[in-house]
């Protein structure tokens, strides 16, 4: 199978998984929702964002492989509203009434993190039945951070807006409660701490939904609602007007100059990425399909730094949508001491001049073996990890192929908090390759048996190796990792340039400032 055919097959599988998220609670529940004259979560978003603007959906596969629906009953993403890049968080009421499960929590927390780091106003499109009660133990205590996050966002001068379309009760009532601006839809919004049955049980008082938490009541009596919307489109209209009056100013001005499209067609990325990750590929070919082409103000598309030293890692400067970035890209998979030192230096250089960094992953990790250990590979790997950990310019990571072992750390994997991390369908990530991991387990077991003088069960060993290999393989695949919210989404390689362009624009909402303060570099 050609590289292209293999990639297209994976993309078709990705489309099918995305379709599950889009389908929400399924035809029956979507129909029922619509029959009440309501819009779906995605329809609300489509109406909210500026016409013709892009919407970068985040974590669409959250919950993949779990007992919960793909997408985790919430839609999050970055959209442009009245010319302002906003974090949009919309409950999907067609999935179990929009109830939050542990994956919902993870996904919303990730969205809040992105909003915080990049200083985005946030818009919550609220309609949720509250917590998924069977899994409350995983939600209730950590979930409290959401409300704390909302008010901290407000304190950080990133406004928070809640458009309430339906249920927002009990703990959920604190989403509007903690937001700076609240719009409620007439005869739909229901915002109270306790509903009529609970009130009856607690105090014996007879009451009804409208008097406890109706939109009219909140707009006219409690004052929790700042605006009363006649219907859903009106709520969205009001939400847009609120954003229009935020006097939003980005910290960094967008580049004024025009730029050229890449020198090579991004479509060719499909031919470039080998199906078998053992086969190396030249990341310069990827860079030539992601970055701005040669043009005025960009006479060389990619200025490579230290090309003759540590050739397994390619470093250099380029532009994406007119913005300068520094790139670190794995070339031969393995990171040696030279590559580690080169990376540490390059990351410091980017910090010196306030330039964001892009990490293109295809690494099997740091080199092992006597020669390398004795040559100080740990010290040198630590220098790279030190640099990436303490760097304060924004980092963007793309998982193109392998991302194994500590290589994942050094290249700014998920735990190193890149501003954004996206995965190609061709990627794999784990502590090591599945076959290696199974082999290591086998060797260790055999040594243990031998030490005890026991005979080694070769048949059992083969079964064990096959099982481990298969399960590690499954757990290192993009859908699984994306399901765990270990990335911000799996993307079509051809969309990478657009995704990077959006991310680079989004990070400009916060100041871009490098640092000269790193940990002690072990020399």
């Amino acid at each position: 199978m050609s590289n292209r055919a293999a990639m297209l097959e994976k993309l078709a599988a990705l489309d099918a998984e995305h379709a599950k998220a889009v389908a929400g609670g399924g035809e029956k529940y979507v129909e029922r929702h619509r029959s009440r004259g309501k819009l779906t979560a995605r329809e609300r978003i489509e109406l909210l964002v500026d016409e013709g603007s892009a919407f970068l959906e985040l974590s669409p596969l959250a919950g993949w492989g779990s007992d919960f629906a793909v997408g985790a009953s919430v839609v999050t993403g970055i959209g442009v509203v009245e010319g302002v890049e906003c974090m949009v968080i919309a409950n999907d009421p067609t999935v179990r009434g929009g109830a939050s499960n542990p994956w919902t929590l993870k996904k919303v927390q990730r969205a809040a993190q992105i909003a915080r780091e990049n200083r985005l106003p946030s818009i919550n499109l609220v309609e949720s039945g509250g917590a998924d009660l069977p899994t409350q133990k995983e939600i209730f205590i950590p979930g409290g951070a959401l409300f704390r996050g909302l008010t901290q966002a407000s304190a950080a001068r990133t406004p928070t807006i809640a458009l309430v379309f339906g249920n927002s009760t009990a703990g959920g009532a604190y989403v509007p409660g903690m937001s700076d601006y609240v719009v409620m839809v007439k005869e739909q919004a229901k915002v109270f701490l306790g509903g009529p049955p609970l009130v009856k049980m607690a105090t014996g008082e007879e009451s009804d939904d409208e008097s406890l938490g109706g939109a009219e009541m909140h707009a006219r009596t409690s004052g929790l609602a700042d605006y009363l919307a006649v219907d859903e489109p009106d709520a969205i209209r009001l939400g847009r007007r609120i954003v229009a009056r935020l006097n939003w100013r980005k910290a960094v001005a967008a580049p004024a100059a025009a730029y050229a499209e890449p020198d090579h067609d991004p479509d060719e990325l499909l031919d470039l990425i080998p199906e078998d990750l053992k086969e190396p590929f030249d990341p310069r070919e990827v860079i030539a399909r992601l970055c701005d082409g040669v043009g005025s103000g960009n006479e060389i598309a990619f200025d490579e730094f230290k090309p003759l030293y540590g050739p397994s890692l390619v470093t250099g400067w380029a532009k994406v949508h007119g913005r300068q970035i520094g790139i670190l890209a794995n070339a031969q998979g393995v990171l040696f001491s030279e590559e580690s030192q080169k990376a540490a230096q390059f990351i410091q250089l980017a910090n010196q001049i306030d330039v964001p960094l892009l990490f293109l992953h295809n690494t099997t990790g740091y080199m092992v073996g006597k020669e390398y250990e004795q040559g100080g590979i740990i010290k040198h790997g630590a220098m790279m990890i030190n640099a990436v950990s303490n760097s304060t310019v924004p980092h963007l990571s793309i998982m193109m192929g392998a991302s194994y072992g500590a290589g994942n750390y050094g290249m700014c994997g998920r735990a190193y908090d890149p501003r954004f991390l996206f995965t190609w369908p061709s990627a794999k990530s784990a502590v090591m390759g599945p076959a290696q991991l199974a082999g290591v387990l086998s060797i260790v077991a055999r040594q243990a048996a031998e030490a005890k003088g026991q005979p080694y069960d070769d048949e059992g060993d083969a079964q064990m190796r096959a099982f481990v290999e298969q399960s590690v393989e499954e757990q290192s695949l993009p859908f699984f990792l994306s399901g765990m919210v270990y990335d911000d989404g799996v993307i079509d390689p051809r969309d990478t340039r657009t995704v990077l362009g959006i991310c680079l624009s989004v990070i400009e909402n916060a100041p871009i400032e490098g640092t000269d303060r790193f940990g002690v570099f072990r020399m």
Partner: protein
Amino acid sequence: MVEPVETCQEREIVTIQRLLVANRGEIASRVFASCRRLGIGTVAVHADADAGLPYVAEADLAVRLPGDSPADTYLRPDLLVEAALAAGADAVHPGYGFLSENAAFARKVIDAGLAWVGPDPESIELMGSKVEAKKRMADAGVPLLADLDPAAVSDADLPVLVKASAGGGGRGMRVVRDLGDLPGAVEAASAEALSAFGDGTVFVERFVEHGRHVEVQVVGDAEGVVVFGDRDCSVQRRHQKVVEEAPAPGLTDTTRRALHAAARAAAEAIGYRGAGTVEFLLDPADEQFWFLEMNTRLQVEHPVTELVHGVDLVEQQLRVAEGSLVQRHAGEVPEVLTPRGHAMEARLYAEDPSRDWQPQSGVLTAFDFPVLPGVRVDAGYAEGSTVTTHYDAMLAKVVAHAPTRDEAVRLLASVLAGARIHGVATNRDLLLRVLRAEAFRAGDVSTDLLDRHGLLLGQEPERDHVALSAFAAAVALAEHGAATRVVQRGIPVGWRNVVSSPHTTLFGHRGGEVVVAWLGGAGYASADGTMTVVEASPTTVVVGRHGVRHRCAVAVTERSVDVDSALGHIALRRTPRFVDPADQVASGSLLAPMPGSVVSVSVTPGAEVGAGQPVLVLEAMKMQHTVTAPHAGVVSEINVSVGDQVAAGDVLAVVEEEDR
């Protein structure tokens, strides 16, 4: 002031120094153009609604006539003469319409010591009276259709036409094909004539099937009458001329000579001075013709004559008014002035064919015509002009001049098809249908051409055409949005990493709505996959469909999107994405169906009305439209009073439905 400069025999020669045109729009511009060439100063008069039109700016001086309605402005002899005196004019040109055939006005102008650019008031009066005119024409030997005694009409005379004596514009006219219908028709025509003209006199004459309207241009001076050939103005819609041409096609030389001689005889019989037109009804079956009437002014369609005879008819009018002689063609026998090629004129009206040809108002956001040799456009408006419904709905006369009739037809069709006219609906498609009709191209012209060949029908543009244009409009709007973005400037329009639904763009088109479902991202495509985009910018979109590329020019304004392509023009209204509930129209509101003025209001607030009961009456361009209650209820609001001018869509009144 008129200044005698020379006296030659009995003629007093004067030189007009400054001319006031007691008219508006294209004819004022037309007269000013000749004045500029002849070194005559120009004065425009304008109603308030016309203050911004090009003719006002073109004039050296302009005088405001306060108000909008013709009765307050262009029909006020006193104000017009005052204006002429105030502006120091020494002559008045009446144009056509308004007071151009009003003898009292002519006298008032002359009495004020100003030169009147038109025939003697006596000639106007004489030709204005049908009975008197017919008598004089009969005496001069001009062929006339005989009046029939309604009591003596027999089957042999059928079909016959019942006509109001005082009539015009087709009102009070009836064709009778069955003898039994005659008494009823006479009665009805008389009643209609009485109410319309205050004179119930009717007469009966032979009805000519497929008759043609042929006319002869004459200009009389002190030495006689010069004939400037003939025209055919048969193609009419509801007695409104639509396409005119010179010379009249398909006539034998004998007939043509006879027509010219009859016209000369008619004009000479009354000692006619100035430009005039003698109209005839011609039976194409045997080329017999009969005198209809004489128009004692310059005709709308005079350009076709000017083009084929190389003459400036306004200049001839001015010469006569100055007391000098009309330009005569040396060496030519006067009766058979040979036309040079063929000229064809189309009248472009601001009227909506899909709404019963209602006159349209609005701003012409684009108004231009391809520049081609042989093309003349006499327009009263320019891009940015506001068209109102106070006056005649004609926007422009588009005239093509070519060596042969067929070439003139092709040229005219090409210019009309290539014109960009945005902001108001027009009759362009009707004009194109006429020019492309086999029968018309073959020279088969008659007053019933449009009905006979179904040319008034088929007004709906093809669905595919609308769909393609609306798609192009949606793409241009998206490009427009992308070009004015403040963030994420280079990001592809409408990009999604997870596609949940196509983008939708809504437009209003005629009475309905068009929904465009499209996909963005790497390139544009219609959601159904039938259309792609080859090239896109805010003003040009090249759409690929079924392997064919369609280049669409798209003009976006705040409220509208106009798409011109080889398929034609489609005007779309932009639909706002959101409506502030405060701006929403209360249900039960009666909206003005067209721009016009309020003639009467028949209910008062608080009145109970039944469904269909008339609430008020609007008038626009001589047509009355009754606005009725949509349902039974109580009138809660009346927002207008008699005399108010309203725009289409204005809320006139609100009828609240009664609770059951």
